[in-house]
């Protein structure tokens, strides 16, 4: 894929998404941003906000193998990674590795905070290493490989919140919000009347996604903007009155990568300050821990990040 063709393909993806998903434009953009920089994303939102629909539709448009895992407390690591099964073969019984849902291109891990820490670790290790080791065998995961994990912010009973060290592995924490009134009217019109199953044709192939990922890394960023991005991340460690623990250098890398991805998606050949400011929220909100003072004043992480942005 050539650089000039990127805006056309992106338009095709977003137009395809609009046929199925109404609203949530920013969520779709951020998910695409994570994909073009070959990273994973955490989706947080109340139930019924089209999180699963977005990811499933994206899988169709990008011609990627989609799989879904509903995390429950009794879910085992083998349920995600795969296991050996005894199969009757020509030469008798033999152990055959049955690949788990992780062997997909897009894995939607629903309610990841409901899985046990052991299962969470198995998934996170697969995300990090891009390979799965079962017994003595190592299996490489297919490329591209994205994990979109969802978290329900309201049901906290029986959950195992992801520790900060683990959430740090997700590039973005994307917040899904309620649609506007007009959007909800359109949703109601579309889904409460005669069901029209929209058949989507793939717009991008796997090679195209690999090209996009390659191009995203090549997007240039001016030195003063790079300094601004790093300054933004380091300021999270200095604002002690509001932030107990600031973001790590991984956040600096993530912020610049995310800004480059966003620039590519918007058809620009350079990173702008607006890209950094926009991506600061999904990059930093799961990487900072607010102080008691901030919580006492009912400040959210987004409110604090807004104060840091110049």
């Amino acid at each position, binding site marked *: 894929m050539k650089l*000039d063709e990127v805006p056309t393909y992106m338009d095709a993806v977003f137009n395809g998404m609009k046929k199925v998903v109404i609203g949530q434009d920013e969520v779709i953009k951020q998910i695409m941003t994570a994909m073009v920089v070959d990273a994973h994303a955490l989706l947080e939102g109340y139930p019924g906000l089209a999180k699963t629909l977005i990811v499933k539709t994206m899988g169709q448009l990008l011609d990627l193998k989609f799989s879904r895992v509903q995390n429950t407390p009794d879910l085992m690591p083998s349920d995600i990674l795969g296991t050996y099964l005894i199969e009757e073969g020509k030469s008798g019984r033999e152990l055959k590795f049955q690949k788990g849902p992780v062997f997909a291109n897009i894995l939607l891990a629903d309610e990841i905070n409901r899985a046990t820490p052991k299962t969470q670790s198995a998934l996170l290790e697969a995300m990090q290493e891009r390979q799965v080791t079962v017994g003595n065998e190592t299996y490489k995961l297919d490329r591209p490989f994205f994990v979109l994990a969802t978290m329900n912010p309201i049901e906290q009973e029986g959950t195992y919140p992801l520790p900060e060290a683990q959430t740090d592995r997700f590039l973005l924490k994307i917040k899904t919000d309620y649609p506007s009134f007009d959007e909800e009217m359109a949703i109601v019109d579309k889904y409460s009347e005669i069901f029209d199953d929209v058949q989507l044709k793939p717009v991008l192939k796997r090679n195209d996604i690999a090209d996009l990922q390659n*191009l995203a890394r*090549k997007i240039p960023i001016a030195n003063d903007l790079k300094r601004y991005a790093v300054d933004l991340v380091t300021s999270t460690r200095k604002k002690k009155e509001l932030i107990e623990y600031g973001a790590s250098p991984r956040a600096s890398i993530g912020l610049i990568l995310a800004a480059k991805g966003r620039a590519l998606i918007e058809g620009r050949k350079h990173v702008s300050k607006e890209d950094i400011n926009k991506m600061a929220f999904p990059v930093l909100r799961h990487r900072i821990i607010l102080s008691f003072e901030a919580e006492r004043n009912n400040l959210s992480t987004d409110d604090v990040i807004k104060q840091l942005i110049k």
Partner: protein
Amino acid sequence: MKIIENALAEVRKLLILSKVFKSVIDSLIVFLAFFLLFIFIKISWYYAIIPFILHLFIYGRKNLRSIRYSQVEKLVPELNEKLRTAADYVGRDNEVVDALDAEVLKDMKKIRTSLFFGSKSNMNKIMVMGILSFAIILVASFNVELFDFATIGKNRLDDERFLPIQKNLDTFLKEGDDDIYGDESIVELGNNEVLIGLNTVEGNLDYSAKKDLERKNFASGYEEEKEIYATSDSSYNDNIPKENQEVVKKYFNQITQAG
């Protein structure tokens, strides 16, 4: 050198020129302002060169150090964030950077010299210079002064309260110093006849040997010559050829006769 590097160098040159122009204009305004002030207080206008040079050096250096491509981006919005990105990636080659360079080169055609030099602020400064120059001419021609700084200064110098040293100097000059001029009684001698007495006791001369003049006869072994003549050693003789001697002789005879 790539085209983009040349183009960026040109832009940088233009930025430097505009900063130098701005610094010179600002310094000239400072010069004219001080010039006008010094006319009002009757101080020589040469002193106005000092703040001019100081301002030019300090602010000129500050302006040159603050040169950034973002200043061009403010004047040409199409280049916003692109120009400095292209400048930071000079020497690095990839398809995205090449595409950005092409875009920047296309938008750089919108850069005009008048954007740097014809700005409203420069026009206002030139107007201020004109007004100051006009004021200087008016003030100088009508000899307007607020107060005479030079005279006030001089009066301050004459005031004993302020400069006791001045008083001491004047007194010194009037009254003199015995050590320098010596004894006044000696100065008063003038053309008077001086009678000098010799102290024979303390002197080195032997006055007991003093006697009258005696006549001496210088007769012994001396014969009076009838003719006394002098000769010179042959080494003093000229080795002039004989025919030339004749010429010289004739020459001097002619001079004598002509005289």
